[in-house]
């Protein structure tokens, strides 16, 4: 140290002597001002300035720069600074610590400057402006324009014949540059297995394997690719990748982890988008602003499920108002999730870093970030109608009108009858009432306690032992003559019906006409664990209000009422047996007027009325009554609009969670991300991707919030946005090869990974964006075809000596990557091999748990689920995904965690995985069912074993294997063999 310090002084003295004085801003200064200062300013100053001085080093002025001895003036070779900024072999340069190393010419400039004696203009001091420094620095590959490079010319290459597609040319060029050569092509069995899993997530059947092995036609492989891309299974496989990235789940997460019964239409939308090969630009636009850019289409609303896909804090929104700090924190984090989901997914840009401070590595300021939050300032996550049939809406209006008119006329007629009927009519009616009561069974139904206020809430609930498929809920009004009410006694004026804690039938906005004894049927589209009737406006009794109901039926697919198996609970109940008690609600008894005496009396009334009104009057009355009852029935049968959980600005309030009606909330600049200390209000804006690009959007006052979203969608998908196109082709590449060209698919910033094939990435991005090379612009299917028909993709996955020495990580793709199946693929393969896979598509997710206690925090009890329930034999993408309590079987197998964006699945090997594969109820039930099936097909033991191996592994067992397995089966039976086969590395790995 001492020596170096002395030397420095010596050199400094020498320098001063030789130059006389340090000149001010002379000719020699030009190299500093023009060439060195900009490098120091943009690449070093952020950390090494006087008020931060990381590593105790500031280069803000000459004193700081020279006093630590990093620079030997006049001798760059002995200047430690040059060592620090230069790469040494495989070790990247130590400085700049964060971000890309300096370019070679930049280092040369600094060397030259030092060799010139490191002239520093007298008194020159850097000024540091964090924002200016940051916004200026777009010198990073991902921000650069995409220019389609020509495919390499490989005329002299010995492996030229290997090149099938431009993709191969790019890869081969890199291989050769690194002294590597490609592996040979994999055999057909390997190829069809690889391809079928990759494109559909399922194994090929034995018949498919054998047909492909036999197929001698020249384009057999291409035909196979086309067949698989045409299969609906393709969308199911690739939608799963997208749902991983966007954090899709069927519950909200956080406290309570409430169900989202209408999330699945978005999942189905994504599957459909892939199967229909929706152009990527449209796919993106629909997910950000489909309602604006594709108005009137279902997909325009369904796509908005993207914005709502992530977690949502129920308590922070519903129980805490926006006027409280906790409420604002929850909403700030909610906006943040929308912003980061958008930019991580579409642009691979980690904008969320700028919530608390300017992004440390990428040109994103806090202003930019809150401008993005402002785009989403008016939307919330809620159920949103995506399909109303206009014809149905017209019918609904017409029916309501019809009922109102008929009721008016009927009321006039009745008034006339009452007036002229006199005592005779009153007496007859009294007798009828008496008879009715007599003919009634005494178990009336359920009756709440009475209330003084009509708007008191009441509820009654039926909980089944386990979630069961129910097609219809049928409500039957009670019948009690109390206060001369009779039919429809206690039927709520306004109410809602909840299934598993979510509203499926909503009559809270307008009064519901009392149906009297007419049953109200409500269709159900999800497995039902609990149903709750919530009355929000009670029926009038005499001077008070209450809720009563004779019966609630739960009809299964065969029309059988299974409500009787459930348990009835209620907020309160008068429990006055035998007439009124909770259990009467599911006792199968409700009142339907009948009886001979009753008929006679009614006939008397009718003849009396006939006398009063005359024949035409009676006909008019009955026709009015018919019209009303018919219209009511039709009205009840009209389907409600279909709903999707999506970004919404209009929805029914729930506690403090209120719709904005499109009025954006103010979004403040938050220093350090602290909600308690808001700065100025920010307008919607984008993240500039190049110097000089404007951030703030031009939006006229009073324009709808959706204008900002539409602008964002168009900006994202503009062909000049280099991030969007690079990001998506890199994802596709990643899923095909197990590793992206950039191995951080969600981060293309300076903290992201390096590109293995920069030119290939840009070539793919440009081709996908603009079309060409048999790719239509934005067509995923074409892109897949281009990639999987390449020779790179068809390589064997065997390890070779040379490749292992030069590139053991296979960054340059000298072989194909072997991979373990994903959790979904494993589960689906077990189902398929066992012959149980049900390929029904779409609809509400099936449960793999027992759902309990839905009234507070739903309990998802996986350990109580019965895996013999065939409702669960559908593909894994259709399972109901619980965010806070993910399926343990799937999680153990590295399934994506829906609380975070998962651009790449982990692939681990753990003892708990082995235990799960061996001992989970699912594995064991499947093994038994698989075995039963085989047993029923043949009695010959070795044929049985062959069948097991063929259906699981797609091949015949070798003789040795057959002998070992035969021994084993003889002792322990077929079930045990199948249990072991599911655990074979061959079953869960693909070459």
């Amino acid at each position, binding site marked *: 140290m001492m020596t170096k310090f002395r030397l420095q002084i010596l050199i400094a003295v020498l320098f001063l002597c030789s130059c006389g004085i340090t000149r001010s801003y002379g000719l020699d200064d030009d190299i500093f001002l023009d060439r060195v200062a900009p490098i120091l300013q943009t690449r070093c100053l952020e950390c090494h300035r006087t008020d931060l001085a990381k590593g105790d080093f500031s280069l803000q002025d000459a004193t700081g720069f020279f006093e630590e001895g990093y620079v030997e003036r006049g001798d760059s070779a002995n200047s430690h600074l040059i060592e620090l900024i230069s790469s040494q072999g495989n070790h990247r340069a130590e400085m700049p610590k964060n971000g890309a190393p300096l370019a070679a010419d930049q280092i040369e400039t600094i060397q030259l400057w030092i060799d010139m004696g490191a002239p520093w203009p007298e008194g020159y001091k850097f000024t540091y402006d964090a924002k200016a420094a940051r916004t200026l620095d777009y010198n990073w590959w991902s921000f650069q324009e995409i220019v389609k490079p020509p495919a390499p010319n490989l005329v002299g290459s010995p492996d030229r014949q290997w090149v099938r597609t431009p993709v191969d040319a790019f890869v081969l060029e890199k291989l050769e540059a690194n002294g590597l050569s490609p592996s040979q092509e994999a055999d057909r069995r390997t190829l069809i297995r690889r391809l079928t899993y990759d494109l559909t997530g399922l194994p090929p059947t034995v018949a498919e394997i054998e047909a492909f092995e036999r197929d001698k036609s020249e384009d057999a492989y291409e035909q196979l690719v086309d067949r698989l891309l045409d299969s609906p299974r393709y969308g199911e496989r690739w939608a799963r990748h997208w749902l991983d990235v966007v954090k899709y789940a069927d519950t909200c*997460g*956080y*406290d*309570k*982890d409430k169900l989202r019964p209408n999330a699945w239409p978005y999942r189905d939308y994504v599957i459909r988008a892939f199967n229909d090969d929706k152009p990527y630009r449209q796919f993106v636009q629909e997910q950000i602003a489909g309602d604006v850019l594709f108005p009137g289409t279902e997909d325009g609303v369904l796509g908005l499920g993207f914005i709502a896909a992530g*977690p949502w804090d129920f*308590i*922070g929104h519903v129980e*805490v108002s926006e006027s409280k*700090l*906790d409420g604002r*924190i929850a909403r700030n984090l909610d906006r943040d999730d929308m912003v980061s989901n958008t930019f991580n997914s579409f642009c691979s840009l*980690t904008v969320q*870093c700028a919530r*608390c401070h300017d992004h440390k*590595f990428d040109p994103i300021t806090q202003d930019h970030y809150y401008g993005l939050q402002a785009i989403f300032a008016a939307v919330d996550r809620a159920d949103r109608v995506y399909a109303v049939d206009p014809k149905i809406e017209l019918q609904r209006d017409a029916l309501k009108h019809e009922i109102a008119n008929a009721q008016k006329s009927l009321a006039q007629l009745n008034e006339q009858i009452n007036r002229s009927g006199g005592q005779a009519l009153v007496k007859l009616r009294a007798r009828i009432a008496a008879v009715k009561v007599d003919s009634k069974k005494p178990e009336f139904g359920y009756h709440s306690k009475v209330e003084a206020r009509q708007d008191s809430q009441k509820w009654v609930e039926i909980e089944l032992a386990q979630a069961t498929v129910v097609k219809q809920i049928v409500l039957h009004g009670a019948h009690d003559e109390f206060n001369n009410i009779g039919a429809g006694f206690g039927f709520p004026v306004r109410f809602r019906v909840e299934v598993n804690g979510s509203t499926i039938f909503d009559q809270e906005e307008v009064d519901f006409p009392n149906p009297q004894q007419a049953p109200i049927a409500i269709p159900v589209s999800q497995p039902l664990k609990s149903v709750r009737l919530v009355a929000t406006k009670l029926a009038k009794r005499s001077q008070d209000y209450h809720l009563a109901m004779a019966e609630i039926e739960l009809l299964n697919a065969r029309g059988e009422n299974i409500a009787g198996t459930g348990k009835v609970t209620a907020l309160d109940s008068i429990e006055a047996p035998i007439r009124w008690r909770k259990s009467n609600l599911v006792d199968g008894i409700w009142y339907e007027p009948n009886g001979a005496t009753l008929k006679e009396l009614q006939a008397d009334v009718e003849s009396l009325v006939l006398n009063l009104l005359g024949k035409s009057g009676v006909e008019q009355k009955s026709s009015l009554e018919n019209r009303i009852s018919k219209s009511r029935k039709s009205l009840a049968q009209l389907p409600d609009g279909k709903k999707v959980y999506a970004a919404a600005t209009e929805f029914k309030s729930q506690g403090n969670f209120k719709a904005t009606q499109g009025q954006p909330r103010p979004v403040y600049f938050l220093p350090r991300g602290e909600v308690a200390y808001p700065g100025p209000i920010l307008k919607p804006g984008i993240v500039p991707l190049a110097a000089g690009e404007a951030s703030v959007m031009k939006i006229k006052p009073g324009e709808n919030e959706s204008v900002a979203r539409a602008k964002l969608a168009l900006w994202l998908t503009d062909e000049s946005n280099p991030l969007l196109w690079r990001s998506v082709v890199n994802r596709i590449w990643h899923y095909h090869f197990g590793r992206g060209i950039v191995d*951080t698919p*969600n*981060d293309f910033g300076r*903290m992201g990974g390096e590109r293995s094939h920069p030119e290939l990435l840009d070539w793919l991005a440009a081709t996908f964006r603009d079309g060409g090379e048999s790719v239509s612009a934005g067509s995923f299917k074409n892109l897949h075809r281009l990639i999987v028909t390449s020779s790179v993709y068809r390589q064997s996955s065997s*390890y070779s000596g040379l490749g*292992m020495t030069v590139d053991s990580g296979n960054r340059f793709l000298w072989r194909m990557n*072997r991979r*373990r199946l994903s959790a979904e693929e494993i589960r689906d393969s077990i189902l398929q091999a066992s012959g149980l896979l049900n390929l029904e598509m779409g609809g509400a997710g099936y449960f793999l748990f027992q759902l309990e206690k839905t*009234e*507070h*925090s739903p*309990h998802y009890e996986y*350990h109580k689920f019965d895996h013999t329930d065939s409702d669960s034999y559908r593909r894994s993408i259709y399972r109901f995904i619980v*965010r*806070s*309590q*993910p399926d*343990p079987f799937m*999680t153990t197998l*590295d399934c994506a965690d829906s*609380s*975070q*964006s998962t651009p790449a699945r*982990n692939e*681990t*090997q*753990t*003892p*708990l995985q*082995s235990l*799960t594969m*061996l*001992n989970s109820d699912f594995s*064991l039930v499947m093994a*038994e069912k698989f075995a039963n099936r085989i047993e029923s097909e043949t009695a010959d033991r070795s044929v049985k074993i062959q069948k097991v191996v063929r259906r699981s592994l797609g091949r015949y067992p070798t003789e040795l294997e057959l002998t*070992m*397995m035969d021994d*084993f089966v003889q002792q322990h039976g077929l*079930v045990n063999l199948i*249990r*072991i086969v599911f*655990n*074979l*590395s061959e079953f869960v790995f693909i070459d």
Partner: protein
Amino acid sequence: MAIDLLRRKFLFESAWGFGSLALMDLLNLESRASEPEGNRPGATSGILHHPPRAKRVVQLFMAGAASHIDLFDHKPALEKHHGEPSDFGEKVEAFQNGLGPWMKSPFQFRPYGASGKMLSDAVADLGCCVDEMAFIHNMTGKTGVHSQATYLQATGFQRPGFPGVGSWVSYALGSENENLPAFVVLPDHRGFASNGPKNWGSAFLPTSSQGTTIFPQRERPIRDLFPKSELVTPASHAQGLKLLDKLNRDFATTREGDERLESRLRTYELAAKMQLSAPEALDLSSEPAHIMKMYGLDRAGAEYPETINVPEEIEYFGRKCLIARRLLERGVRYVQIWSGNDNSFPRRNWDSHEDLKREHGPLARGMARGASALIQDLKQRGLLDDTIVLWTTEFGRMPSTQGSTGRDHNPHVFTNWLCGGGIRGGMSHGESDQWGFKPLDRENPTQVYDIHATLLHLLGLNHLKLTVRHNGIDRRLTDVHGHVIREII
């Protein structure tokens, strides 16, 4: 406890038990395989940042927000001003409407130990341990919403998507015993607290670092440890594993160089070992009577009423504590015990909005008995020296009344305590103000980051250096915060 007996029968009298010759035979298979990720040494194995004071941690998490001023943080001012209208000297946003009059604790406070630490009668059982314990009374949170606050205390971030503290520790240090998981969670038997298993998820760390849940009262305490099928017998299991090993070895041999296939062979051997080790660790039958009594487990077969009550809470919490001790002494790195479930009805957690005495009484007595037994038991075995006990909750409760007998959320101040593993005992660090409303020194509170930094420090880890890059960000347990609390170590 019929279920308990059944389970014991299943595990120890059946051929599945650890006497099984077939399994022992299997374990003697020669192993050529490389280490699987599940039980590989931790990321910092062999390169600890500095010499550790502690090797393992047991964390007691009180879900629903346990009241500091009714357990550990004595406030004479509340006794003096009980019933007077509360005045905080500033506008206060209560989570619900709990800004009624000042309310003294329904429990008496008394001094304990040489340090004379005041504890409420609800936690009197911890009195004998106070000289081992360091209390931190100026803990402050960021939110009064349970889910976010629980995430913050459990993962260091107030939103989902981050690894639990136990995941970080087991990721960094790996397992001391490859036959048991490195991170074990004992949830409340009545259900999960806010956020459920996401509080101990591995998020972006390897799956192997996530907490393995154990439900001692279930028929199968560890999911999938044993098959539930009449067709699979110990013999078919053992023979099956041999066949599997042979076939998987053949497969790996024809695919030379792929370490994953090798390590997969080893995962099945470790799984078999775990089948022997785990039931033994959970089996309390070898514990002597005085130990059972110490943990309050001397009432075998007791029946409990439906309403919340002290003996039942003692039994359940004590059982978890005793199992925790057995796991810790067998090399489990991090054990997390939860008290309190979700906000269902009737209330079985610490979120006493309505009636503080009703829930805090039994829950605290149960917790104190188990925790006290655990500390004493660890001490007498010499394990307390290198085992950290950490008691925490998501936030505190207000010194004012909600309704007439409840308390609302107080995210501004609450209490944590630590003991063992290099912690200085018999001390309190940081104070709350005279009401227990906010830290006395509002500029210098203690935050969860400081607790986590201290925990890692004692384990030989520098919280600034334990980072994992995820989606472009070098993530730390302590985010961009955290200071080691030197005063308590």
